């Protein structure tokens, strides 16, 4: 609980973070940037869980537990995505989205 800041400010922040992530996922041209956008979305959910837990239901620590698991799984996801990107880079020497278009329609 932070003095002087209500839950509305924090939920507004996480919503903005979430939609920045969605926007980035759609518009970025680089695979690594897309990955960073996905991380923004996941982090928005993490903050959401912690804040809802702390402000609305402080008796049971369910939200905090969920957030710890999300952080761990986000790391696994990133590791896998980066390893696939590295493998792709070895073949086409590029991490741009426009070079991954040999399968279309």
């Amino acid at each position, binding site marked *: 609980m932070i003095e002087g800041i209500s839950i509305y400010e924090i939920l507004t922040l996480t919503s903005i973070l979430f939609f920045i*992530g969605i926007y980035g996922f759609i518009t970025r041209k680089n695979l690594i940037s897309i990955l960073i956008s996905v991380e923004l979305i996941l982090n928005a*959910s993490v903050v*959401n869980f912690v804040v809802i837990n702390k402000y*609305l239901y402080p008796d049971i620590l369910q939200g905090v537990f969920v957030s710890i698991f999300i952080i761990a799984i986000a790391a696994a996801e990133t590791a*896998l995505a980066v390893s*696939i990107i590295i493998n792709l880079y070895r073949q086409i020497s590029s991490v741009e989205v426009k070079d*991954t278009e040999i*399968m279309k329609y």
Partner: protein
Amino acid sequence: MNIGSFLLMRQEILLLAIILLLIICEIFISQNKKSSIIHLAIFLFGIHTIVGFFAIEESEIFGGMFRTNGLIHFFKNVLNIGVLIILLQSADWLQEKIVHENRGTEFFVLLFSSLLGMYFMISSGDFLMFYLGLELSMLPVAALAAYETTQRKSSEAGIKLILSSALASGVSLFGISMLYATTGSIYFNDIIEVITATNLSILGLILFFAGLGFKISLVPFHFWTADVYEGAPISIASYLSVISKGAAIFILMILLFTVLKPLMHIWENIIYVIAVATMFIGNLFALRQQNMKRFLAFSSIAQAGFILLGLIIGNQLGAATVVYFVLVYVFSNLAAFGVVQAISLRTGKEKMSDYEGLYRTNPNLSLVMMLALFSLAGIPPVAGFFGKFFLFTAAASEGYYILVFIAVVNVTISLYYYLLVVRAMFLRQSDTAIPFFKNNLYMRLGLIIAVLGILILGIYSPVYDYIYELSKNIL
């Protein structure tokens, strides 16, 4: 809680034991005998499938995080049979392409880990277990899609799958956090009692539904499907289209019918619109495909649209028809993918025009393919007809006549493109037809099981009655 209650999750424990055993065997089997790991893995998984049929009582452990009942146990067996067929069909490919690179064991370990994730996902009793199962089921599949590391297409399929599924689970999580904000709990049993239709919970429902829609490849979220199916190894494409999609549909059904039932007046409208869009776009895009893998990808999108007809009514009849349709769909789609895989492995040909004159050179394969396509299209003697018939009956019983009419129109469209393949195989002649080849024992066994499933489910009605009995437990 005593040690005996762990037996409730004996399928999970057994599968985990198989995974560990395979890793240990990888160390001890010598370099020139690596292909024996294929036989070992198929043998162990066959035993696991048979053991899975023993009955399990209905209960829950870990404070309600993990639960099981008759329908969940039955669905795990369906997944087992599907994975067994996929293993049998992919043995040949593993033998030729993967084993000499010394990566045979990883294939099985990753595939079984993904199946383990699906077990936990469909038995989950709270959103944390659900999320962990969802991720455990999706991450190994992304690694497997990029498994042919020398192929550029395979890497592209992998990166598209991992990024889309990461986005999907992120969106889903944001939705879950909103459901948590309105109800104050992540346990399904607590949520059922307090959830009401407020603005926040409706937004949570929509985001959550969007996340699962990615996995089932419903229409606004279907863009990854065709690309991933084309680029990934065929056994992984069939795994994605059958097992992964089936498990996601099942857990979506459980959640909508039990936890989110108070919001039914919201989600039935969402499903109505998405069902119409999914059927039309899946079918119309399938019309113009020339590559067989992309063709089957769009056909599986359209099939997901038909399944939504059973989801929309939200009662016991809907649950039974959905599970029955998924069971039929497992056999039909795996038969079709098996034939495509056999031909692709022996000749490298995947285009529809390459299939011309196949009946003259490979009559058995063409007959299997014909049965599979008839079952997918819904032509009476085979099982697919009854799957679709029950779904349409279920939707009509609640008065969705217009939706049923749209679905019937779509069945007609789908008949056209399924019969295009049959025409190419049986009626066309070609000088460059695929020459005769013999499949190995495993591939033949996999195709025979799939064909038997298609035929037996079509004429043996007690299966449907059994599923109907089981599905009254979930409500």
